[in-house]
């Protein structure tokens, strides 16, 4: 038995092809990583073989790192995915058109005028009670922690309010656990919010079955009054997930612009020259199995008007206040 085992082992080296650290080797390695692991080829109707044919023509053995980086970055740009990046020591290739090509609908200075100087700060949350008894919460980064204790204290403080506004504009994402922790305080029952699949093989359609994701109610304070979520095109990734979670709750209204999307869980790999590449590895869907990669529409579209902005007013916040006070 041992001899049979040894014979099999000797002929069974488990390894991955190690491409050369040359422009050709790095190009082929990047193309292969994406070919086998990227999860949105069919949804986005991208012919990745054709992309290879187009961009391989720009690869020459004597090109320098800057030129190689530009070609590889442009190739990744065809995926139109904010979760796809190439990182060298000197630059980051990115696709940011998901928010750069759209109105901002957010002004940091105007937001700060609403918060004033006497607002509460806990974890990543900033909040205060506005003059018309509406609670205003700004959460600008899902990488910043929000524990159940922080949220319980915040909701206790805001308990007297008629409703609350949760402003996640310009929140580019962070930790998914923060998304579900915060959302869990706005439901009193278990709710189906989304589905997830992941790649199981190197084929473009090699996916697992869809797994349902539920939002469980928090053991702490559960807010049951009205909530309005303010969104813009810069809501991405974990923020997109939070908006999707909240959209499943009956007391929640989405107001503002469509979110930026980012519905794929990103993974990282690397090239022979040490450059890191990030890519979407597993797609998330809404509760009806619709893709959320390109964003979530609000219930009420509202844009920041130039007139309001010039007067230091935020059209989205003002609209939300009016709705909550009706």
């Amino acid at each position, binding site marked *: 038995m041992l001899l049979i085992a040894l014979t099999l082992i000797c002929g069974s080296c488990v390894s991955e092809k190690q491409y050369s650290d040359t422009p050709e080797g790095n190009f082929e390695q990047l193309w292969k990583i994406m070919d086998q692991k990227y999860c949105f080829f069919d949804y986005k109707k991208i012919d990745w073989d054709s992309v290879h044919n187009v961009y391989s023509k720009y690869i020459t053995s004597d090109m320098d790192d800057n030129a190689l980086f530009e070609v590889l970055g442009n190739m990744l740009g065809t995926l139109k995915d904010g979760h796809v990046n190439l990182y060298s020591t000197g630059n980051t290739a990115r696709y940011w058109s998901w928010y750069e090509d759209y109105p901002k609908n957010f002004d940091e200075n105007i937001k700060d005028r609403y918060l004033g100087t006497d607002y509460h700060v806990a974890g990543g949350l900033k909040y205060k009670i506005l003059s018309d008894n509406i609670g205003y919460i700004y959460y600008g980064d899902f990488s910043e922690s929000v524990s159940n204790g922080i949220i319980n204290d915040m909701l206790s403080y805001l308990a007297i309010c008629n409703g609350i506004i949760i402003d996640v504009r310009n929140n580019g994402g962070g930790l998914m656990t923060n998304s579900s922790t915060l959302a869990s305080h706005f439901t009193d029952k278990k709710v189906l919010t989304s589905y997830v699949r992941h790649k199981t093989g190197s084929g473009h359609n090699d996916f697992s079955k869809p797994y349902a994701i539920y939002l469980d109610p928090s053991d702490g304070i559960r807010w049951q009054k009205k909530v309005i979520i303010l969104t813009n095109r810069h809501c991405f990734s974990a923020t997109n997930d939070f908006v999707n979670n909240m959209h499943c709750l009956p007391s929640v209204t989405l107001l503002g612009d469509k979110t930026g999307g980012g519905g794929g869980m*990103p993974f990282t790999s690397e090239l*022979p020259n040490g450059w*890191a590449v990030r890519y979407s590895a597993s797609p998330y869907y809404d509760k009806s199995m619709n893709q959320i990669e390109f964003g979530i529409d609000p219930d009420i579209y509202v844009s920041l008007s130039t007139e309001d902005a010039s007067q230091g007013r935020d059209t989205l916040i003002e609209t939300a206040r009016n709705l909550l006070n009706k």
Partner: protein
Amino acid sequence: MNYDAFRTLILCIELLLPTVLSAQKLDSLRTNQLTVRCVQYGIGHSNILDTYLSTQEYKGIDFRTSRETMRMTNIGKGNVSVQNFLQADFSFGKNRVDNNNTLAGMVNWNYGLHYQFKLSDNFKLLAGGLGDTNLGFIYDLRNSNNPASLRAYINIDASAMAIWHFHIKKTALVLRYQLNTPILGVMFSPEMGESYYEIFSLGHYSGTIKLTSLHSQPSLRQFLSLDIPIGQQQIRLSYLGDLQQSHVNNIKTHSYSHVFMIGFVKRLYKLSNKELQKLPASIQAY
């Protein structure tokens, strides 16, 4: 252990424990109570690949410690020995352009039996099976949502060993070669694009426990050791080749370590509680 050393050991035991063993003769010594134990420390080279984390191999240094015991049993008319081998290693690797690192650690426990074929007084071949339990990790210092890979697998190994007692001039030496390879096992592995967040936070465990065999986990561990008496001590010098591979859920991994180890060999005779009670309390430490 050669015959002279064995007699010396018996003599020592008889001197120390006259009330217990004064009538004991060599052929009546219960060999199943005589344990050979060795604790070793080593350093070597590692080569790690885990395509869940990176397409690139990470090469670096491997630090390792091990504890091994062997003794005879009553099984098979006293021809079966039991081996208990526990090792832990930690490695630090870098990619080929040295701009990123991985940390890896593994605890491995082997426990099993060998039938001893005594071909001569000095040379024997052992064949048997081991339970082979492994728990460890690989951590990539740069990755975001896939920063680490959990390594957890249990195997039944086929194992063979050759032990040769010989002399160079008057020095008694023991040379041992051992080879273990997993035949059947189970392994934890995420699926190719499945995040640990999905497994552990969302509870999607389906497909993460896989049956493995030679086709999906062609691995082996081999030991070459030489026991050398130095004064009153016995030193063990070892080479350990730990070649672990897997191809499960379309994720390829390998961890090749070549480690040189050194340690001390101890021979311990286990006394039963009944025998200990015959000893005067005044000469016992406790």
